């Protein structure tokens, strides 16, 4: 009997993900995040993995932009000022074992029930984004992506006019690879380094990024000591760190967006791995992460895919943004702003407002034409879409959006990359 009960229990556990996804995506209905619903409001849909910190922060950043625009009278639609209103639904696509179909069901539920004029932030996982594009194209809704980074987004937009409603304000993997490679090259020259170890989360965007970077490294004279991929949720990185240490890796390039990922640097500090970490660890991007990891992330050079969390002089809008965010959501919440999604989500709202004003209507096709003509300064730099509806990223915020890197130095985040925004130079951390 006990054996049967045990078998039943195991089966129940294996079925949990399915049950949870049903409860998460089906029954956990859309939450209106604005406090007051107005009859003439322009509804913006946010369907994303709200339990994930990048996505949750993105929703807050978008809400802040909406509040700012509403406070100034609203959006000009053909001469009439109308307020924005955000509605949100949890797709849970960041969680392990949540099938793509369940996330899509949540998006469709929001479209059908809330009838948004456009969608912002977008889903978290690239796998979900690629499938969602087909569904959203069917409804002809302008869709502003802030988080998912797959290069296939652009290929898809290019492949068929039906995807013309999709725009990505967030960084894409190819840009990230370019920035990481450039940063690697700078560090290699500065410290005479040539041995690198790649480690990433086993998801499409992170794999794509580090695979691309590995190719670049091999072609540029670097010795690749190893390359490991960890499943989402993994928290023990000792096998990678041992191999990196024994192989004499001078640089370790992590690319992760899961909360457990800063354990890698924490463990490396405990194991005295004498390598510089430079890459993307989402959980070590915010101001509060220094306290969380007890200073064990000292020396980490971490990328903010798009800046929102760090007030940087060369990105002037990031300073009032942080002040306003702290006032609206509290100082504790401000210190939790991450390095991905928040900036483009905030800017997406202003891009949309500008496009609506230019189009003079909420007609999707007119909006697409107006969005394609975007040419304005945002928090993440200068905003302009390329022909495949991807915001152009570069190294100068005056001419393009920028992805920036900072280094943790004794509890402070010092902007170090690109040169146009740097407020300090990369230093090698002391191994204690």
């Amino acid at each position, binding site marked *: *009997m*006990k*054996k*049967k*009960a*045990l*078998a*039943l*229990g*195991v089966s*129940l*556990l294996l079925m*949990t993900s399915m*049950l*949870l996804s049903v*409860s998460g995506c089906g029954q956990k209905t859309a939450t209106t995040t604005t406090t007051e619903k107005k009859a003439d409001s322009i509804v913006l849909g946010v369907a994303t993995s709200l*339990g*994930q*910190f990048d996505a*949750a922060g993105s929703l807050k950043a978008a809400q802040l932009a909406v509040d700012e625009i509403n406070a100034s009278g609203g959006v000009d639609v053909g001469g009439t000022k109308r307020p924005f209103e955000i509605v949100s639904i949890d797709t849970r696509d960041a*969680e*392990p074992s949540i099938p793509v179909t369940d996330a899509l069901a949540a998006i469709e539920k929001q479209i059908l029930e809330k009838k948004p004029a456009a969608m912002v932030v977008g889903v978290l996982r690239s796998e979900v984004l690629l499938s969602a594009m087909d569904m959203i194209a069917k409804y002809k809704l302008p869709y502003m992506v802030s988080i998912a980074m797959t290069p296939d987004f652009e290929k898809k937009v290019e492949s068929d006019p039906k995807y013309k409603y999709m725009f990505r304000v967030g960084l894409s993997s190819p840009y990230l690879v370019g920035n990481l490679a450039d940063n690697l090259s700078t560090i290699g020259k500065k410290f005479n380094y040539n041995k690198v170890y790649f480690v990433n989360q*086993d998801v499409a965007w992170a794999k794509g990024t580090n695979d691309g970077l590995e190719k670049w490294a091999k072609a540029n004279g670097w010795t690749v000591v190893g390359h*490991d*991929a*960890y*499943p989402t*949720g*993994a*928290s*023990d*990185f*000792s*096998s*990678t760190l*041992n*191999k990196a240490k*024994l192989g004499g890796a001078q640089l370790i390039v992590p690319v992760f967006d899961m*909360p*457990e990922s*800063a*354990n890698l640097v*924490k*463990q490396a500090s*405990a*194991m*005295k791995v004498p390598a510089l970490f430079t890459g993307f660890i989402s*959980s070590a991007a*915010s101001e*509060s*992460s220094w306290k*969380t*990891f*007890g200073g064990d992330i000292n020396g980490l050079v971490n990328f903010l895919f798009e800046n929102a969390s760090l007030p940087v002089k060369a990105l002037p809008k990031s300073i009032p943004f942080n002040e306003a965010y702290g006032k609206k959501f509290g100082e504790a919440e401000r210190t*939790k702003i991450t390095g991905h999604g928040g900036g483009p989500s905030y800017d997406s709202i202003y891009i949309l407002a500008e496009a609506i004003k230019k189009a003079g209507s909420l007609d999707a096709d007119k909006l697409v034409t107006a969005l394609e003509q975007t040419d304005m300064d945002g928090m993440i730099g200068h905003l302009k879409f390329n022909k495949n509806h991807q915001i152009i990223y570069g190294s100068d915020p005056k001419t393009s959006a920028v992805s920036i890197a900072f280094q943790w130095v004794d509890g402070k985040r010092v902007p170090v990359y690109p040169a146009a925004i740097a407020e300090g130079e990369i230093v090698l951390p002391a191994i204690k």
Partner: protein
Amino acid sequence: MVTNFLIYGLVNSAILMLSAIGFSLTFGLSGVANFAHGAMYLTAGFIAWMLINYLGLSPLVAMLLTVVLMGILGALIYRIILMPVRGIVLSEVISTFALGVALIEFFRWKGFTSFDFSLPPFVKGSIEIFGVTIDYQRLIIIGIALIIALFLWYFTHYTNTGLALRGMAQDEYTALSIGIESDWAAMLSLGLGAALASVAAVAILPLGIISINLGYEIFLIALAVSVLGGLESTLGLFVGSLILGYAMVIASTYLGPQWGQVVYLGAIVIVLAIKPSGLFGKYKELEERV
């Protein structure tokens, strides 16, 4: 490289053993398969975090208090949730399973999903052993795992309470006939199991952060170790942890980190298919022969 394997394999084995010991003990002593074990581990982590960060208690006091509170919570769970269905094994499993999912999802719902939750290590710093650097916290984990294993072996073999609990596990009716009260024994074993889950949590969680999905992961690990070693066997728990601990380190190093998880999930399926009683599950082996 070999020294690395030996040391980090041992650390991994100790982590697995600590993670599983509460589950194995509860099942071995009361026959209750506590499917809320992972949720207990997670709850203990969050309670300790809140005691430190909200009440300002010192980490040591907070961790000790957490173990006590979790022990009481485990006993209460038996009194409130399990006692009404005691003896109906299927209902026991469903009750603990539902409780576990409810606890884990409660934390997710309340927003415990950010990366702000971590516990401080007992001692910071590291030491070099045979050329391998290892931090004190991992060494402490090995020590705690050994002490607990020895304590449990002594407790269940040489104390009246432990012997009474074992008697109840072997034959409930005979134990009742000599005055051992079934509900008291089961409540104690649930309380002990929850307290051990919290010992594991406060020892292991300082290595990283408290993340919601650990609730599911820890339970699967506990299940794999217990199923491999034999559900009611302390020796089985010890050997099962060593086998899985080293297998995971070898798989992670040579095949890739993603294979580390495959090892323990695969172990559950293979052992249940080939030898359901596990390596040292003597009572169940007899049952199977019958």
